[in-house]
């Protein structure tokens, strides 16, 4: 199945205005035709509805994520998915999307990809010997730069009560590949039409956790993640974990609490893998999960005018 990745997450929320402002401050922008559709630069994003909107599919356990929409390469893939899933469940078309449900009880949908191509380069660091450098006079950091915008919807992490069943669905029915696995926790999975280390991560969890752990967008590089995350903290949002860099996937991360009942991450620079990659297996632990973890502080500078002990004085 030529599934290319996640394109839209549909949420039903209790405080729509707060959720919307959160995503705007995170860096998404509102679609021209719908203020409650918040987009990354490539057009992927989040749709917000009131929790009691009757048109939304149901979700387990009060989970606010009501639908995860994936992109596919073409109409033929859409047909193939309709046939495959039609064998044992209801599949219907809504707004050009093919909608059904996965084996963990989450509503899913597919659409011919609507992502816009992004003619942008990522963060480039100058390193001695590297043939690719920033051109002379191009700056690595622009302190007062305007809004930092996420580039593309990245991945979604589900808590699922029956891990084996959920994994079988994505791997055997939809053709996802396992790229890496945390022992006793779950697999990172990648659809056949994507090279990203993961677009989904499945975590086996008790029934009362059934829901979403986090979702995240890709930023242009680590500087954007940390600069944007620092602004987010200054705006009053509450960091949960990070900034740091994961080992599986190599992505930079910074996780924040959110009004969505799950974490929201900012990420950058994830590994790509093709089908020659052999999945790794690691026991979950602090050292397996991150190469390093940093801790944010208010800006300060040693020098004249700094109190004795610098910022540490207070």
């Amino acid at each position, binding site marked *: 199945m030529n599934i290319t990745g996640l394109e839209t997450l549909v949420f039903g929320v*209790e*405080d729509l205005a*707060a959720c919307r402002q*959160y995503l705007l401050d995170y860096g998404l922008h509102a679609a021209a035709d719908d203020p409650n559709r918040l987009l990354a630069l490539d057009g992927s994003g989040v749709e917000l509805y009131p929790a009691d909107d009757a048109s939304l599919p149901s979700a387990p356990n*009060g989970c606010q994520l009501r639908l995860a929409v994936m992109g596919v390469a073409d109409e033929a893939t859409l047909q193939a998915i309709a046939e495959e899933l039609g064998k044992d469940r209801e599949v219907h078309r809504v707004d050009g999307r093919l909608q059904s449900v996965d084996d963990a009880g989450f509503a899913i949908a597919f659409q011919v990809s609507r992502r816009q191509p992004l003619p942008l380069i990522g963060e480039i660091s100058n390193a001695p010997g590297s043939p690719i450098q920033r051109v002379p006079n191009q700056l690595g950091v622009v302190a007062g730069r305007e809004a930092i915008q996420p580039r593309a919807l990245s991945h979604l992490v589900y808590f699922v009560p029956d891990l084996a069943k959920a994994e079988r669905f994505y791997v055997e029915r939809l053709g996802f590949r396992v790229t890496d696995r945390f022992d006793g926790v779950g697999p990172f999975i990648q659809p056949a039409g994507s090279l990203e280390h993961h677009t989904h991560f499945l975590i086996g969890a*008790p029934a*009362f*956790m059934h*829901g979403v*752990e986090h979702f995240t967008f890709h930023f242009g590089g680590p500087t954007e993640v940390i600069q944007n995350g620092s602004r987010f*903290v200054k705006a*009053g*949002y*509450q*960091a*949960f974990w990070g900034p740091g860099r994961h080992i599986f996937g190599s992505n930079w991360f910074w996780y*924040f*609490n*959110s*009004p969505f*009942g*799950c*974490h929201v991450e900012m990420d950058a620079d994830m590994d790509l893998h093709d089908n020659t990659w052999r999945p790794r297996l690691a026991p979950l632990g602090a050292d397996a999960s991150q190469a390093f973890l940093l*801790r*944010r*502080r*208010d800006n300060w500078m040693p020098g004249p005018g700094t109190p004795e002990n610098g*910022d*540490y004085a*207070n």
Partner: protein
Amino acid sequence: MPKSPTVPNCHAQPLCHLSELGEGSARGFLPDEDGQDRIFIVCHEGRLHAWRNACPHLAGAPMAWKRDAYLSPDGRQVMCHAHGARFEPDSGLCVHGPCLGQRLESVALHISTSGQVSLADPHLTCSV
């Protein structure tokens, strides 16, 4: 989560005045150097309840999603915005979510006759 280093000169400093805490509201106090408040106070049915900003689900995890945003959308429960645990605002008991049956850690308050709210044990300021 590591304990924050000692905060000098914080003894018995009033956190706020009673009149600043409206019924059904919550507010965080004593921010650490990460910008996370160490405690928060909920005003529920005319009484103040102070809790450590530390979810029992993952030891020490901060609970608000934005500064002072410690309550559920309907304002009736304390909520951890990491994984959605909900707590009774007066007993601190988790009634929904991954730490069901566990409790928030309470922090004793002192309210002066003039209505200044401070920690009952000023040394706590330095260790929560």
